[in-house]
């Protein structure tokens, strides 16, 4: 579904991604973790073209992201993205947030997009918040709306960039529960997160990044029981002692 081949990215002189190669198969759930600055957020932002990269290739659903001829807007409508800061549109209601891209990009009718929106709100447990505005919702609720907004486009893969990092602790679980359900329903997911419990529950593979490189890339149980690199061992010991 997604494949990264020798991806390199620079910000000016600073190299953010070094020779990153990995893949995410259909229906696979892959967790990307690592310390701050390791490049994990950048990696998934490259996958939908929000960040450019200088060399290597990234292919999503057989479409090359870096190719000049690719229609990025169309590609992006097939990739769902959930941001750390939710990024709901504050001047639009919850319902409008979920419908706007359906109508503008997928050209669905108002009726169709509204129906889909309500179905999704039901799915994330927020059916009666449709007319509210983002500022009236809690962080956890906003993030669930953001997930619904991404799902409304019927994406083939969902990318999550630290979806729970900006949430108060008591709201993390309501979002993770939605994500777990999504995974169990067979969505292809690539998730940047520190939530190792989530990884253990639903991830098929875990990727560990450090300083722009992919250091570990293996099945979940192998990663947690027997990581190959010292850096990963070190990271795990620190993070699991919380």
């Amino acid at each position, binding site marked *: 579904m997604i494949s990264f081949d020798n991806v390199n990215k620079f910000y000016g002189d600073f190299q953010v991604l070094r020779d990153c190669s990995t893949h995410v198969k259909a229906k696979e759930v892959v967790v990307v973790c690592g310390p701050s600055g390791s490049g994990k957020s950048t990696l998934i932002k490259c996958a939908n073209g929000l960040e450019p990269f200088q060399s290597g290739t990234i292919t999503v659903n057989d479409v090359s992201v870096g190719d000049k001829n690719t229609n990025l*807007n169309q590609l*992006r409508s097939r990739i769902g993205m959930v*941001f750390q800061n939710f990024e709901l*549109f504050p*001047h639009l209601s919850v319902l409008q947030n979920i419908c706007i891209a359906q109508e503008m990009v997928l050209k669905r009718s108002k009726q169709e997009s509204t129906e889909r929106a309500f179905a999704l709100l039901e799915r994330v447990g927020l059916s009666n918040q449709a007319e509210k505005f983002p500022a009236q919702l809690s962080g956890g609720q906003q993030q669930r709306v953001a997930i619904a907004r991404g799902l409304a486009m019927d994406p083939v893969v969902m990318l999550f960039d630290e979806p729970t990092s900006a949430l108060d602790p008591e709201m993390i679980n309501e979002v993770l529960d939605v994500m777990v359900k999504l995974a169990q329903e067979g969505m292809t997911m690539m998730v940047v997160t520190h939530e190792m419990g989530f990884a253990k529950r639903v991830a098929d593979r875990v990727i560990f990044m450090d300083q722009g490189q992919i250091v570990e890339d293996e099945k979940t149980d192998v990663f947690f029981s027997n990581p190959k690199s010292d850096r990963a061992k070190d990271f795990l010991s620190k993070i699991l002692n919380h």
Partner: protein
Amino acid sequence: MGDFDFSVIFDNLPFLFKGMQTTLLLTAVAMFGGIVLGTLLALARMSSITVLSVVATSYINFFRSLPLILVIFWFYFLVPLALGRPVGGLYSVLVAFTLFEAAYYAEIIRAGISSVRSGQAAAARALGMSYTQSMRFIVLPQAFRAMIPILLTQGIVLFQDTSLVYVVGLKDFLVSAELIANREQRLIEMFSFVALVYLAICFSASQGVKFLERRMKR
């Protein structure tokens, strides 16, 4: 200290009112045109197409480094020449003010657009919306909402700046008052009246903007 005769004001109210209409017309046109052109300039300035960005930045810096009086003189001289025939002062002045104000509005709007969190544009693009769609439906609405107080305040500044048409004799509120002042030898009465009127209008307008600001913060 001579005698004051304020009746001169009341006797000439219609004439003064006509002058005020010109002032308000100038303000409205320059404000509207300035905001429209200013938005285009701001977008051009922020664009990744180098030519656009350079042209817009030069325009903005150019007009912001010149006194308004000089710009008025420029267009008063230039517009009839360019059109090949004499033109009423009003048109030259309208062009001058609009082009001048656009540079100031452009900076306000650019700051407003920048203040919309970059994540918003990213979220819109991530959903597949095009640059135009994300600008039009997501970024600009938020930017303008935030900018309304500053845009209005700039409008009040513009309202005061229109008095500079004095230098080309266009009959706005100030010039109308001055004409009466000179004709009737009532400088003190007329100029105090002008000052009071401007004070009243601008002060209430700025209080109005403050009120609006408070309400917008909800």
